[in-house]
């Protein structure tokens, strides 16, 4: 037997105190298999030991929430007996080490979380953060991650309908890959993971178990250094073909009456799935590893319990249904084995080659996992001190912004994703939110992911509030009623008080905004230790959100539809330039405070715009976010290939720069036929919503081609084609000659 030395304990990522607690819980020293099992179950990745105490502050309930955090994914009621099931999850560390497989298996993992609950996945999104474009690794990582997401999602036949991408030097050594999956199921056919009852067969389905990904969860719970390349073997290898078969086989099994509980084997594989299912069911589980389908010879119990081989599920069946289930999995040419049984002992007992190799109380692994009140220091929000050069011409600044890495078109990325498979994608990437019709109905789900990390760095509380507000606004801008949130909290090392302070403040910001919008958090994931050589990433609490359109015919898009429409600006413009993209891209300065979010105003303005869309008065709307008013107008002009003449107040160049590029929150642009304007403005005034005329579409009369020009006060006539050239040009130019070969 391998002796358990302090060195071995540390290699398993456990502290001396944690190890002492394990001995206390077991009443003896663990053996190596048990130590391995504890190490993954008590890892930050599986136990949320640093964040759990804070996450309790998030609002998680609403009448339409069918299942909040704690299951594989969150579930909300979308009417007519239908439910939407969704979650976002990170695969940051693996994607940095091995971008194609890291991203691919991130997509596979989050899909399993959704279909293990009985849903057919209907849409994928991803929130990606890369290092500075000029950093040596960035291009290869972009190419690999995008190919990996596409390689997996495309094969699954689930459309990837949008997401977000940022570049910033803080991610040079630690990229973020957050994938979100949305599925649809019947509300009365949702499957949970509680392994209730004793004597029920525990079955293993999907791929065989290999030695890949051993200790992936532990790897994901530590910082990186120069030796990170050596961690490559901890990254799993994805097989989307098997996952597609697993999806169809699981849905076929779920149509029967055979399942008590089911859970995917994600991080920490067989260990976490069995322990979590037993814990939730208040039962015990006995596993016989000799029956586990194995890909390699001579695998030890330690290997099998810690393997993170992909495309596997663990299910508890009702007794007597084994043959029925086996027939389905054989049809789909998947492995199927009864590997254990539920018990009433409350213990996880693992046998291998005739001997008991682990025997632990289930509660010790889950409920008894450490929860830390780590010390934290609150961040002092940055003061809004900025300076700008008033001589910079607005036209040139606009073109530069449109072609900047964070604002340019992401076409290069999303054309590598199948975004129309399943024939229900009603709004493609490029708008405020993607819209996917619920198959066979007139209703649709709107989906978005948002966060502005530079805001969160300057002020984690306001920044996190803003992330929720922007997601809520994006859903409202297409006409959807925002329903619920999934959050993916990406931060640095929580053992540092300033990082823990970022986490605490961000959770408070999310909680406050979600409460104000009645927009509960129903699922989520934390990714900590995103640091390399002690340098943390920008705090990045990514918000994924889902809304419902009752009638997909009443939907707004960002493209200008008609010449001669009146442009109305909803929301107040103060000209807040602190932390704006204008400041960063044009002045080269990341300074100031982020724009504050007044949640009451935000809600009032959003409800106003949504009602205009729902009642058919508005078909063109766009939220104003990164880059401000002028960037939003440029996007609307490019979308519809119709220009505009813009009216904004101001006297000096400073005024105009602030009006055009300020990132004040709670704002939308809508474009309406002249006949409807007065009624809309009157209604705005009744409801206390700031709304003003801000121009006319396609109005330009001059030497340049009519209706192809964007112009306004202090803005020289700018051809849409010049905007488009800058906007569409950056990504393909940057990626030219990328070296990542597509891999299957």
């Amino acid at each position, binding site marked *: 037997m391998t002796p358990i030395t302090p060195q071995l304990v540390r290699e398993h990522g456990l502290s001396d105190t944690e190890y002492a607690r394990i001995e206390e819980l077991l009443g003896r020293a663990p053996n190596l298999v048990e130590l391995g099992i504890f190490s993954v179950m008590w890892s930050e990745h599986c136990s949320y030991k640093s964040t759990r105490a804070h996450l309790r502050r998030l609002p998680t309930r609403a009448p339409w929430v069918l299942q909040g955090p704690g299951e594989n994914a969150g579930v909300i009621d979308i009417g007519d007996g239908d439910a939407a099931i969704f979650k976002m999850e990170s695969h940051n560390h693996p994607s940095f080490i091995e971008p194609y497989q890291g991203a691919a298996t991130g997509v596979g993992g989050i899909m399993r979380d959704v279909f293990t609950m009985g849903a057919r996945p209907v849409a994928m999104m991803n929130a990606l953060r890369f290092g500075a474009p000029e950093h040596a690794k960035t291009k290869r990582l972009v190419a690999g991650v995008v190919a990996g997401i596409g390689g997996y999602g495309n094969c699954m*036949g689930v459309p990837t309908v949008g997401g977000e991408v940022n570049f910033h030097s803080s991610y040079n050594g630690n990229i973020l890959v957050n994938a979100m999956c949305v599925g649809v199921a019947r509300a009365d056919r949702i499957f949970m993971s509680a392994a209730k009852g004793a004597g029920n067969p525990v079955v293993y389905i999907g791929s065989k178990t290999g030695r890949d990904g051993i200790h992936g969860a532990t790897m994901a719970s530590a910082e990186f250094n120069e030796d990170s390349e050596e961690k490559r073997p901890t990254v799993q290898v994805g097989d989307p*073909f098997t996952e597609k*078969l697993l999806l169809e086989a699981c849905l076929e099994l779920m149509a029967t009456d055979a399942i008590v509980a089911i859970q995917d084997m994600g991080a920490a594989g067989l260990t976490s799935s069995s322990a979590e299912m037993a814990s939730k069911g208040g039962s015990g589980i006995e596993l016989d590893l000799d029956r586990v389908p194995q890909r390699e010879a001579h695998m030890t119990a330690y290997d099998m319990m810690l393997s993170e081989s992909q495309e596997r599920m663990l299910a508890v069946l009702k007794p007597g249904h084994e043959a029925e289930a086996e027939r389905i999995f054989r049809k789909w040419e998947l492995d199927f084995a009864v590997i254990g049984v539920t018990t009433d002992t409350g213990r996880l007992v693992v046998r291998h080659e005739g001997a008991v190799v682990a025997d632990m109380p289930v509660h010790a692994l889950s409920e008894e996992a450490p929860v830390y009140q780590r010390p934290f220091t609150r961040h002092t929000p940055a003061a809004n001190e900025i300076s700008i050069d008033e001589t910079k011409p607005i036209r040139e600044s606009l073109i530069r912004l449109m072609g900047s890495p964070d604002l340019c078109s992401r076409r290069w990325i999303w*054309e590598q994703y*199948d*975004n*129309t498979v399943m024939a229900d994608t009603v709004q493609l990437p490029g708008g405020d939110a993607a819209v996917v019709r619920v198959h066979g109905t007139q209703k649709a789900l709107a989906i978005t992911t948002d966060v502005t990390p530079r805001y969160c760095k300057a002020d984690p509380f306001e920044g996190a509030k803003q992330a929720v507000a922007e997601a809520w606004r994006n859903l409202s801008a297409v006409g959807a009623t925002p329903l619920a949130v999934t959050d993916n909290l990406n931060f640095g090392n929580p053992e540092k008080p300033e990082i823990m302070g970022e986490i605490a403040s961000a959770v408070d910001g999310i909680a406050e905004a979600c409460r104000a919008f009645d927009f509960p958090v129903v699922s989520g994931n934390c990714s900590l230790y995103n640091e390399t050589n002690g340098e943390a990433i920008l705090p990045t609490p990514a918000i994924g959100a889902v809304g419902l359109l009752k009638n997909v015919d009443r939907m707004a898009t960002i493209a200008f539809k008609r010449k001669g429409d009146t442009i109305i600006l909803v929301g107040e413009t103060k000209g807040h330039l602190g932390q704006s993209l204008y400041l960063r891209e044009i002045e080269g300065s990341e300074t100031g405070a982020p724009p504050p979010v007044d949640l009451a105003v935000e809600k009032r303005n959003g409800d106003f715009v949504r009602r205009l869309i729902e009642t058919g008065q508005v078909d063109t709307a766009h939220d104003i976010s990164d880059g401000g008013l002028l960037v939003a107008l440029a996007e609307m002009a490019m979308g519809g290939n119709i220009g505009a003449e813009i009216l904004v107040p101001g006297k000096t160049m400073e005024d105009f720069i602030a009006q055009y590029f300020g990132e004040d929150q709670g704002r939308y642009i809508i474009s309406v036929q002249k006949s409807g304007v007065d009624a809309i403005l009157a209604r705005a005034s009744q409801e206390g919503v700031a709304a003003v005329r801000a121009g006319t579409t396609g109005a330009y009369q001059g030497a340049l081609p009519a209706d192809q020009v964007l112009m306004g006060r202090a803005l020289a006539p700018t051809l849409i084609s010049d905007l488009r050239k800058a906007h569409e040009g950056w990504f393909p130019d940057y990626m030219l000659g990328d070296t990542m070969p597509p891999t*299957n």
Partner: protein
Amino acid sequence: MRTAVIVFPASNCDRDAAVALEQLTGEKPAMVWHGESEMPDVDLIVLPGGFSYGDYLRCGAMAAQSHIMREVKARAEKGTAVLGICNGFQVLAEAGLLPGALMRNADLKFVCRPVALEVEETQSVFTRKFDKGQRVTFPVAHGDGNYFADAATLDRLEGEGRVAFRYAPGENPNGSARDIAGILSEKRNVLGLMPHPERVCDPLLGGTDGKAMFESLLEALS
């Protein structure tokens, strides 16, 4: 018109094809599992898009060897209409029902976007309701759509009027020889094409250009 959609492991446009067929014919197609060796008597067989067998080995290579393909070949011999879309086209090429091969896209990347096509042949059950030279827009979504055949084969396809669809000038998304997007068999009852007509049969989804193909089939085969 009675129809069947063949389902291979990891076909993923089988539902999309079924929806389009049902919309146009009013009848659900028979969904035929690849392991079957028989299928009902139908007027049209559709090989849908997807990643049959994960695209492992070569796209369509393993599906071409499946049980059901023997029956598909026999039906095609007898004159039953067979439509292969995307992965279905790759399967037809691998099965020898259509000449040539679909190679990795010239820029080595998966590509998904609407592409303008020109309808070159209207003398087929698939294209009779289009106008000759008509421009239509269908989306493509593939990593291996780069049509290749030797010059003699290409000459023959063109000479016999078997190039049904070409990518419009400047629109070729994958490097296909002579901008070929879809071809007919010698007897003109088998069509393989990379773009997806079934994804443009609903105005909400960005167009209805694909409907004419299903309407052609309905008119010809009912």
